[in-house]
């Protein structure tokens, strides 16, 4: 499958991997310059679907500026093999290594990791462990705390009872106890496995600060200014000696909004930031 007409060309492909195949979309760099490559890591569960359009727009923008981009659907997600309930953090890390290996063979130059929300923490965790060296990370709306994110995800199961006062007030604790007992939970149509949940619970943006890896964070909100939460996390990185450029862009939270929305300012800011690192 390839696109046609005046749109930028892309290729859809399946990489053979543990338990089947991983669906990927490759956007080759266009124009004369070959500046490098970017590997995209999607967010968790429904946020992945909400952000598809923005991810594709950003990939096309990078390609137009001379960067080849690979988007991978991780195990159990999107069009890749496997069930969501069988996904594990380590499996996803292996998928990233596989995708990076493929991308290195099909694009020249330095490779950046680009991740949205949980994908941003995947990028940081992978960069820390990977034998391969990356030129930098581009983090869109990174989660600050995996535990907080899990609480938010579990709350979706409790939405109805919370406001009615019918719940005994310990709903997410109750669900966590079920996970701790080894039971898979269905939340908003996704099977959440205890092992994946506990891996996510442990993630912390501040503790994942990489050493000597240029990082750009991008935050989208209606104020167009960094939120207190991400501002504090960026300060903590700097205090620990890690460079981070925090960009705030005016826009709606496209990864969670009810209607699919776009944020052109984010694409411009991200492409500019990447181009400047190689100016």
């Amino acid at each position, binding site marked *: 499958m390839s696109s046609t007409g005046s749109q930028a060309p892309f290729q859809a492909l399946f990489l053979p991997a543990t338990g089947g195949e991983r669906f990927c979309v490759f956007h080759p760099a266009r124009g004369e310059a070959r500046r490098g490559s970017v590997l995209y890591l999607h967010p968790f569960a429904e946020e992945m679907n909400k952000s598809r359009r923005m991810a594709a727009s950003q990939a096309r923008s990078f390609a137009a500026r001379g960067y080849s981009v690979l988007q991978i659907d991780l195990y159990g997600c999107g069009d890749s093999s496997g069930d969501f309930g069988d996904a594990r953090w380590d499996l996803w890390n292996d998928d990233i290594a596989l995708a990076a290996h493929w991308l290195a063979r099909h694009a020249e130059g330095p490779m950046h990791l680009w991740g949205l929300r949980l994908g941003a923490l995947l990028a940081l965790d992978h960069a820390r462990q990977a034998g391969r060296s990356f030129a930098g990370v581009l983090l869109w709306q990174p989660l*600050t*705390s995996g535990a*907080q994110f899990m*609480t*938010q995800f579990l*709350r*979706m199961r*409790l*939405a*109805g009872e*919370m*406001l*009615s*006062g019918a*719940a005994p*007030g*310990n*709903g*997410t*604790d109750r669900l966590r106890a079920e996970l701790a007992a080894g039971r898979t939970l269905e939340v908003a149509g996704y099977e959440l496995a205890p092992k994946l949940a506990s891996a996510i619970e442990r993630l912390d943006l501040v503790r994942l600060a990489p050493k000597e890896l240029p990082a750009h964070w991008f935050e989208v*909100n*209606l*104020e167009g200014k960094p*939120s*207190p*939460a991400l501002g*504090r996390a960026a300060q903590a990185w700097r205090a620990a000696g890690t460079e981070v450029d925090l960009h705030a862009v005016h826009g*709606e*939270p496209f990864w*969670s*909004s*009810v*209607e699919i*929305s776009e944020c052109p300012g984010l694409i411009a800011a991200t492409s500019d930031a990447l181009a400047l690192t190689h100016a």
Partner: protein
Amino acid sequence: MNAVIEQVRTVVDSALQLRGRLGACDAATPLLGAIPELDSMAVVSLITALEEHFGFTVADDEIEAATFATLGSLTRFVRQKLDA
């Protein structure tokens, strides 16, 4: 930094995609029951957005309907969390 009520209004607007429908920053502006978008699922999204913006964590037993009655009641709740 903007007054807390300004920030709360912006977070509500953004989380519910109201696109300015909330109007001027008035503590008496009714929320729950007055904004059709604010159903139980949207309350969950709104709590998430407030947590992520301000960087605090809301416990299950802190969530009650009265908190979401007006922009003022929600702002009082956020102030308490920030002072905690």
